[in-house]
Structure formats: C-alpha cells, structure tokens
C-alpha cells in the first residue's frame, strides 16, 4: 500500500494514469495534485481534459492504471469503502432520481450511506430547508428546474456530512442566478471546514471559490497556482477586432502584433489580442488601424475565456474526446490551428 506522508492534506494524488481502451485514449497521463484540509482546489480544463476522470478516481468510482491517491490518508483503491464514507460527490449530470421526490432522493442516499431511518429523515428535512427546497421537497423531480436539481444533487452529497466534497462542474449549464446560489452554498460549507475539490470550465468560478488552481489539459497538469498568479500570466483582457475586408488582414496583423506580448490570433476577419490593459489596448488598436486606414466592422473587449487560457498555457486548443467520460460540446467558432511541432512532440511522448 502506498504511503501518504503529508497528514495535512485532505486529498492527494500522485502520478495518476488512466487509459481508456476504447479509442486508446490516454485520459490521464501522470496527474498529481494536493488539496490542503479546509481549502478549495479548482481543477480547470476544457472538455475532455481529464477532470472528470480525476474526480472519478478520487471518489473510488474508477481505478487508476497506475499512480495512487488518498483521501484523508485513506487509499482510494485499497481502502475504497472507508473513502466512500468520508466523501460527498455531486456532478454535472445531477445524479438524482427523476421518479422520486426531493425528500425521497435525499432519504435514499442517506440510507445507502448507512444512516439510520431517523437520522435519514431528519437530514432530509434539514437539507431541503437549507437548500431552499422545503416547499418543493415532496414534489416529484420531473417538476424541478435545472437549478433545483443541482441544489438537490449537492444536498444529497452532503447527507452524511462528509469532510471532503468532490464537485464535478457543479454549475455547468446553470443560469447566473442559480450559479450564484450554488456558489454561496459552497462557500458556506468551506467556512464550516469542508475540503472541496471542484472541477470547472469557468475561470470566474475557480476565481471566486478556489484558493488554489490546477489546470489540466490532455491528461496532464499544465499549470498550477493561485488564481491571481494564473491570471497575471494570462493577461486580463482580450481585444477582438473584426476587419472590414479580407485584403487588409495581413497588414492589420502586422500592425497589431507590437501591441501585445503574445502573437495575435487570427480567424477569418477576426483578430484577437491578449493584453493586460484592455481599454488602453482597445484605444491603441483603433488608433493604429484608423491611422493605417484599415476598415473595421467591429471591436469588442472581453475577459479571457478558458480557450484563451489554454492557448496561452499550452499553445493549442484541445479536441480530445475522453471516451464517454465527458460530453464534448461544440467548440466556440475560433478554429485556431495548433501552433507548432513542439506540442505534437509532447503528445507523442
């Protein structure tokens, strides 16, 4: 059995490797991470990066091909049953039972967590109350909104008061209001001492909730640090300018390149620059193009998206599909090519 010396770590993973035989996908290629007790770790990555696989291994659903991991010092493979009694798991699919009421769902999970009937009933009432589902508690889930299902999913995960919580994209697909509500609930849990590992595609979410961030891509850790450190690396804004005609694209790129430390990204008529001072850079872009009499059709200033994070960190967009692990959503319309052979070399390694 592996030895886990760092007793202040609630969760630790060392060199996790997982290959899915179907499609021979190397979902995890040596992922290590640590979550200190009482803190939140944000696991960031695009669809198919391996986030869900990490969570599934840590929550004992899946065994790693190699490497080892522990929760509160308990090995997730050899002491899986003990691990299951210390963790809560809520996920992007909101694994709740459609045919049951909210109360029945929580009660079922409580009983399967081996709480007595009395405690199960009490916890169901408490949690429904806590998550604003008291009135809907005795309604069948078919009548629940997406946000209500997620809240119920989280409530069910908390039924045995687990000291460690895994949240797999807890707010993906939620409207902003539901997202805020869920964030507040997670913050409350952390205040009470719960250790959380959460996966997300949203920088904003990691930024708000996580003390530390691990970015994974193609099954490898590509960056880690606090949100502030990562953002400093990224630049804070993206200036996106749409040019008036194709003839001027090359000239515009040539003129705009000096305005950012990073090379502009070009897709059809759109040129994008990652910069630190958005408004100033926007003005510079306008002035430069105007002086050169290059026609523009539009200008936008936006926060860096996760795509930008990955471009910056890894130099490519990921398109790996992780078997049936994570649904692969249609990518945003910027089909930027890979940046060079260096990346390909890394993949082949």
């Amino acid at each position, binding site marked *: 059995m592996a030895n886990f010396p760092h007793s202040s770590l609630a969760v630790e993973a060392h060199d996790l490797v997982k290959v899915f035989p179907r499609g021979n996908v190397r979902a995890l290629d040596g992922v290590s991470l640590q979550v200190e007790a009482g803190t939140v770790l944000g696991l960031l990555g695009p669809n198919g990066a391996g986030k869900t696989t990490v969570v599934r291994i840590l929550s004992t659903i899946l065994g790693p091909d190699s490497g080892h991991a522990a929760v509160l010092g308990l090995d997730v493979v050899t002491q899986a049953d003990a691990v299951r009694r210390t963790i809560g798991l809520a996920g992007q699919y909101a694994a709740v039972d459609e045919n*049951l009421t909210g109360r029945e769902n929580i009660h079922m999970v409580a009983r399967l967590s081996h709480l007595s009937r009395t405690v199960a009933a009490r916890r169901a009432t408490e949690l429904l109350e806590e998550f604003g589902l008291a009135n809907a508690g005795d309604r069948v889930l078919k009548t629940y909104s997406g946000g209500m299902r997620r809240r119920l999913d989280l409530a069910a995960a908390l039924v045995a008061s687990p000291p460690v919580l895994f949240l797999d994209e807890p707010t993906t697909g939620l409207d902003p209001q539901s997202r805020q509500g869920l964030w507040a609930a997670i913050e409350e849990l952390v205040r009470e001492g719960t250790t959380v590992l959460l996966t997300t595609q949203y920088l904003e979410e990691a930024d708000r909730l996580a003390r530390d961030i691990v970015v994974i891509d193609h099954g490898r850790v590509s960056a880690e640090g606090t949100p502030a450190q990562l953002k400093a690396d990224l630049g804070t804004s993206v200036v996106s300018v749409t040019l008036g005609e194709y003839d001027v694209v090359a000239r515009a790129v040539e003129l705009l390149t000096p305005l950012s430390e990073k090379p502009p990204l070009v897709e059809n008529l759109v040129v994008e620059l990652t910069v630190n001072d958005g408004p100033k850079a926007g003005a510079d872009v306008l002035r430069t193009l105007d002086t050169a009499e290059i026609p523009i059709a539009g200008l936008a200033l936006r926060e860096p998206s996760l795509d930008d994070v990955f471009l910056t960190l890894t130099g490519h967009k990921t398109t790996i599909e992780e078997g049936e692990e994570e649904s692969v959503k249609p990518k945003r319309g910027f089909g930027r090519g890979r940046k060079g052979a260096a990346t390909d070399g890394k993949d082949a390694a």
Partner: protein
Amino acid sequence: MTTTLPAPLLLDDQTEGNRLAWAVADIITMAKRNILAVMRTPEALFFTTLQPIMFVLLFTYVFGGAIHVPGGHYINFLMPGVFVQTVIFGAMSSAAGLAEDLHKGIIERFRALPMSRSAVLAGRTTSDLVRNFFVMILITIVGFAVGFRIGTNFGLFLCGVLVILFFAYALSWGFAYIGLSAPNAETAQVMVFPLIFPLLFASSAFVPVATMPGWLQVFAEHQPVTQVVNASRSLMVGGVLHDSGAVWSALLWTVGLLVVLAPIAVRKYRKVA
C-alpha cells in the same frame, strides 16, 4: 505543519458483524426506489398489464377454437403459458431499468456511496420480482373471468406460481446483463426481444409442441420455457397435463440460469459502471 485533519464522520456503525444486515437494507432501499418509480408511472404499469390480458383474450377467443390440446379445455392449457409469458416480459424491464440508471448517471452516485456493491442489481431484480407478483395476481383474475379453473388444488397452484416467478427472477439477471451492455434504455428493450421471442413462441406456451415440425420439436421440447410452462401446467391443471419430471427440470433450469447469469451480471456491473 500541524494542521489537524477533520476525522471521517462514521455515522453508521458498520462492523463486520452487521455488514450483511446493511447489504440487505441496501437491497431493500434500492428495490423500494424502483417500485416507487413504477407506481409513479401508472401508464407504463397499465399497458404492460394490458398486453398479457389481450393475449389471453386473443388466444381464447380468436385462435383457441383452432387449437386442439390434450384435455380439451384450451383455456386451462393456455393460462400457465400466459403466466410465463407475462413474467418474462415483466423481467425484461430489468434491462431497460438498469440501462436507464447507467446512462442517467445515477449509478455513478451509487458507486461513490458505501453501499453494498451488488445492491443495485439485486435491488432491481427484486423489485421486478415484486412487480411480477402483482401482475400475476391480476392476470389470474382475468383468467378466472374467462373460464380458467384450477385442476389440482390451491396449494399446488401457488407452487406453480412460485416456479414461474423464480424462473423470471433468474432471467432478470440475464436481462440485467443486457441492460448494462446496451447503449440506452430503448435499445435495451429491443435487444432482449429477439432472444425472448423464439424461446417463448417455439415452446409449449401457446400450442402443443407435437404440432410443430420435427426439427423445431427438438428445440421446443428441451428449452427452459417449455419446461417451466409444463411444470406450471402440471402443478396448476394436472390431469392429462401432469408432468412431475417437468417440475424438477424447470427448477434445475432455473437454479442453473441463476448460478450462471447472476455472476455474469455482477461482473459486467463492476466493469461498466
């Protein structure tokens, strides 16, 4: 670093001694959940019950006149066959139910809980058994309404019911395996049908095997559905249909199927989920 870890909260009192008690509790929890789901969709229950009723009526009033059976009373020959057909169709829902659980992600949740590993499958087969039991009661009532009469005694009739339910329970594990292999619930339904169709219709369920071509008789005589149908006829109707050999054969088939299918399903469950 001297940060103290929060101790794992062991709210249950799981020791080796009551491990079995919890496993049973898990199966009951899972079965209850499945039965609640059935009761919440009464339409599905209504139509799955309607189907065997229509079979009873169809065979009694449409085909019945043309089918000549030992003993002369076709309805008495038919009802045990319809019972078997009904429970087999009932057991098929194990496939769809598990496929649905698997693909809606709820099995993921179960696997991260400290519950017994086999409770998901055992709970599903148990709830299908319970449902089959109630459907049997309904069909029996319909049978009596169209003229079916017990030819032996009530005790033996109940034994016949048990033989049939036990057989369906064993098949449930096979259907569970198929459900875990299917890409979704709808496909699971379609996948079990080609397996069940020849077993059910190339059997003694609706017509005497002797009326079939010779090559088919060989198959029909020796396959489990015929054995179970003949066994229940022997126990429920008796007389010229008495066949104690079929009773033992049916039980042997059932135990054999259970011993083979249950471990296969459990292994599949461990692999896919």
